[in-house]
């Protein structure tokens, strides 16, 4: 009797497993370079563009005070930068051809500013600071010496304020 030939046995069923790796934390970093430019700058604010002195009896009012000015100074400068605020008149107080010497104009101040006498030849320091900062709500009150020797008239002069932040 012829025997049928049958298929071979199935292959061995050994199964291999890959060892599980420990899952470590992953990290990625990136750098960002930051720069900030801080330039020197100066900002001056006056509470009024003009001051006026009312007429008065020199015997009763030897010095006429104007309404106080409020002065704000903001500057950015080097750490040791010398910040100055000065005033300079363009000439004497004039009414037509009649002068009143500008040196008759003086001022007093509150904290942060310095009192002084106006000049038409050299800038006079009103305030000085070191470095950057805000100096706000400073007070300056002008006064005009009153005299019987003044000719009658309306006198005017222009005072230039200069704020410097190096």
């Amino acid at each position, binding site marked *: *009797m012829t025997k*049928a030939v*049958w*298929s071979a046995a*199935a*292959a061995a*069923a050994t*199964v*291999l*497993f*890959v060892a599980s*790796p420990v*899952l*470590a*934390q*992953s*990290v*990625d*970093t*990136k*750098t*960002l*370079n*930051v*720069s*900030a*430019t*801080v*330039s*020197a*700058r100066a*900002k001056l604010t006056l509470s009024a563009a003009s001051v006026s002195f009312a007429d008065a009896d020199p015997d009763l009012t030897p010095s006429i005070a104007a309404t106080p000015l409020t002065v704000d100074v*903001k*500057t*950015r*400068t*080097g*750490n040791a*930068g010398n910040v100055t605020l000065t005033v300079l008149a363009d000439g004497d107080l004039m009414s037509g051809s009649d002068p009143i010497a500008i040196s008759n104009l003086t001022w007093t101040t509150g904290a942060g500013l310095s009192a002084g006498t106006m000049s038409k030849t050299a800038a006079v320091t009103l305030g000085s600071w070191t*470095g*950057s*900062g*805000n100096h706000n709500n400073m007070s300056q009150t002008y006064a005009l010496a009153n005299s019987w020797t003044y000719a009658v008239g309306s006198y005017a002069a222009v005072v230039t304020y200069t704020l410097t932040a190096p």
Partner: protein
Amino acid sequence: MIAATPVAAQTQTTTATISANVGTLATLTLSSANVSFPDADPDAVPQVAALGGPLSITAKARATRLSQVLLTVQANGPLRSGLDTIAVSAITWTSTGAGFVAGTLSSTTDVLVGSWTGSGTRSGTQDLMFQNLWTYASGTYTATLTYTLSAP
């Protein structure tokens, strides 16, 4: 008497094991390596925006299931211009994109920029702002920020 006929085998089977190792992975991309804040009048511009607009950030992470993926930032110190410094807390930001948060820069601790759960790709923007003050000494200030993305 008739002998029975053997039946031929119809199938042959074998097995194999398929496995995939999926490791943790983190890839962080910033749209720029440099950010600059221009000079401005502190009265007019109290918060200076960075030139070029917001920074775009893409955080890709493969992490263990349900783990916390974190993106943080820290400065290497204050903003410096020679001997003059400005505290890095002068730099703050707002953000867009799911998972991204606002914050204030620090040079002493990592500050959270974004956080997410598990694997994925997350994109957003960070709008950096510089607090502009009159009290700063003039100069060009610099600092380096390190962003760290971690996928546990």
